[in-house]
């Protein structure tokens, strides 16, 4: 497969399209011209792009849950509840895992069992099986914008159906929905498939309908150093922009150290714009989304509230445009509507309460921003070099060479040599850099930081630290100290 970062021609697009729409019978329901009309008639309050612009300009923070259940009526009830009782500013429809793997037959079975048992046996909303008209029923039942949130390597049919169904934002990307979400699928395949999705959105843009695109920031959600996820976000932004996407929200999952997190959100926006401009994309509107802690949560709800609030506070200090909210049920299971709304209200309280406090530039913040910037540029520039200036080729070659490498990822196309661990202040550093293209100065920085922790903990820097850090927040700490919960 010869992938390159080049806009699909109309001819290519339509050739693929005819195949895509055949993947499941609901594909027949999609009629692009009719969809454009539908979007034009839709209330502007349901435009994700418009809402994000408003928030960025007026400097307030949007809050959004994750949520999705098997049956349409229940899904509508759920979204209305999160809108009304959760004070969500924008809504999701989180797609179930079978749909994410295009197993529509199994989905059908899950839907039927869910009807039979009177509870959702699917872990999300199966939009493809429900089809365009059912999606519109969902959109029409709420007042605010709704986004498709998923984790689907091949998300082409899902995009066709949900966009025709009135969704105005689409999460994911050819890298971010591959590496953390699949095992055997090549990047060639997913990047190509996502070019289709981005082109589809480009076509909506050309018809005056702005659809927001959100590369998935947190990746595996577990101790991902900012430069890794930034590099992916930048690559996917360039890929999306090439296909005509104009409204992009780049994402980042909370690390937990305030300075590092603020530095990450600030640099994410700056660097994404920097690379977009470098490649001549001057009319792409960039916003940021901050994900509350994406790793293992404490099981106790009271403790989970603490983690949720700390994420909300960090988002406020960073000045992210949007924050994705966790619930007090996170460690145990998909939340009830009530628990989900509780997470939202906690978050709303914190972000509105802290609305007027942003972290101003200071030496520590500057130093952290410099580190992230240097690392991110090193990775992205190396990918570009490997791709001869083409980020599609560069991303593929980059993963193969391990110059970009996501910790804990299940994909066999990810080298898996990089190991992250927290430093003595809880910032995420590199214990192993693998083949990341970092210069000696950067490597020495990480080494020094982890040795400082090792000395404090009186133990060698080792894989045990990584394990301890994976468990730490779930056990009430951030840095996984050898004595666990006990104070030393």
């Amino acid at each position, binding site marked *: 497969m010869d992938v390159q970062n080049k806009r699909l021609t109309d001819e290519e697009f339509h050739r693929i399209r005819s195949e895509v729409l055949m993947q499941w019978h609901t594909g027949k329901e999609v009629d692009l011209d009719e969809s454009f009309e539908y979007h034009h008639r839709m209330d502007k309050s349901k435009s994700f792009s418009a809402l994000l612009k408003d928030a960025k300009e007026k400097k307030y923070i949007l809050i959004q849950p994750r949520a999705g259940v098997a049956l349409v009526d229940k899904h509508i009830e759920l979204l209305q509840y999160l809108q009304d009782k959760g004070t969500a500013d924008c809504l999701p429809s989180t797609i179930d*895992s*079978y749909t994410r793997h295009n197993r529509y037959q199994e989905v059908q079975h899950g839907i039927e069992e869910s009807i039979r048992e009177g509870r959702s*046996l*699917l872990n999300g909303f199966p939009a493809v099986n429900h089809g365009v008209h059912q999606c519109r029923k969902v959109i029409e039942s709420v007042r605010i914008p709704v986004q498709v949130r998923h984790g689907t390597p091949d998300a082409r049919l899902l995009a066709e159906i949900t966009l025709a169904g009135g969704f105005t934002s689409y999460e994911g990307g050819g890298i971010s929905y591959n590496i953390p979400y699949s095992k055997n699928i090549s990047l060639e395949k997913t990047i190509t498939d996502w070019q289709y999705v981005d082109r589809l959105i480009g076509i909506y843009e050309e018809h005056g309908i702005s659809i927001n695109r959100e590369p998935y920031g947190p990746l595996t959600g577990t101790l991902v150093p900012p430069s890794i996820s930034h590099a992916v976000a930048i690559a996917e932004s360039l890929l999306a922009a090439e296909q005509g996407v104009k409204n992009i929200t780049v994402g980042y999952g909370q690390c937990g150290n305030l300075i590092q997190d603020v530095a990450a959100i600030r640099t994410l926006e700056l660097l994404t714009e920097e690379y977009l401009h470098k490649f001549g994309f001057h009319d792409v509107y960039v916003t940021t989304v901050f994900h509350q802690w994406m790793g293992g949560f404490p099981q106790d709800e009271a403790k989970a509230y603490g983690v949720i609030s700390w994420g909300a506070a960090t988002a406020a200090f960073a000045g992210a445009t949007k924050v994705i909210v966790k619930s007090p049920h996170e460690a145990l*299971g998909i939340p009830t509507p009530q628990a989900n709304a509780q997470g939202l209200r906690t978050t709303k309280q914190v972000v509105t309460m802290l609305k007027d406090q942003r972290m101003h530039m200071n030496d520590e913040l500057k130093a952290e921003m410099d580190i992230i910037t240097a690392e991110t540029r090193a990775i992205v520039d190396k990918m570009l070099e490997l791709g001869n200036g083409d980020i599609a080729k560069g991303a593929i070659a980059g993963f193969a060479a391990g110059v970009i490498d996501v910790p*804990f990822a*299940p994909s066999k196309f990810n080298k898996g040599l990089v190991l992250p661990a927290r430093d003595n202040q809880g910032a995420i550093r590199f214990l192993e850099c693998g083949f990341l293209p970092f210069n000696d100065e950067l490597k020495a920085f990480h080494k020094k930081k982890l040795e400082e922790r090792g000395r404090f903990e009186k133990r060698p820097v080792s894989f045990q630290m990584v*394990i301890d850090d994976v468990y730490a927040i779930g056990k009430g700490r951030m840095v996984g100290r050898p004595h666990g919960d006990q104070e030393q």
Partner: protein
Amino acid sequence: MSSHTIVLGVIGADVHAVGNKILHYAYSQAGFNVVNLGVMVSQEEFIQAAIEADAKAMIVSSLYGHGELDCRGLRDKCIEAGLEKIKLYVGGNLVVGKTPYEEVQKKFLEMGFDRVYPPGSDPALSILDLEKDLGN
């Protein structure tokens, strides 16, 4: 210290890889010979691997909520494949939503699992159980 062979994996369309990596490390440290199939493992792959490696136990994880749908029938398939005696352990976030452990346990015991672990169980517990069930 035990040196039995066990097969480890995350069943179904589930990609939660972190716990799997940690379980792999923990069981290996405890002396087991671990065949780790990683994430997104089908029932057939579990069985195939168990036969090939002559494994004494299958350690099935399911985190993403479809565990109930994914695990049904595994015991029968094992018996069909001649793995009458294999121990079946399952753990993770087995069903959709926060659910009392007793209910979940009952459901999976009825499906033919030998041991069922609640969310976030410490691997050390299952190591003790394995040593008990398999002898060491």
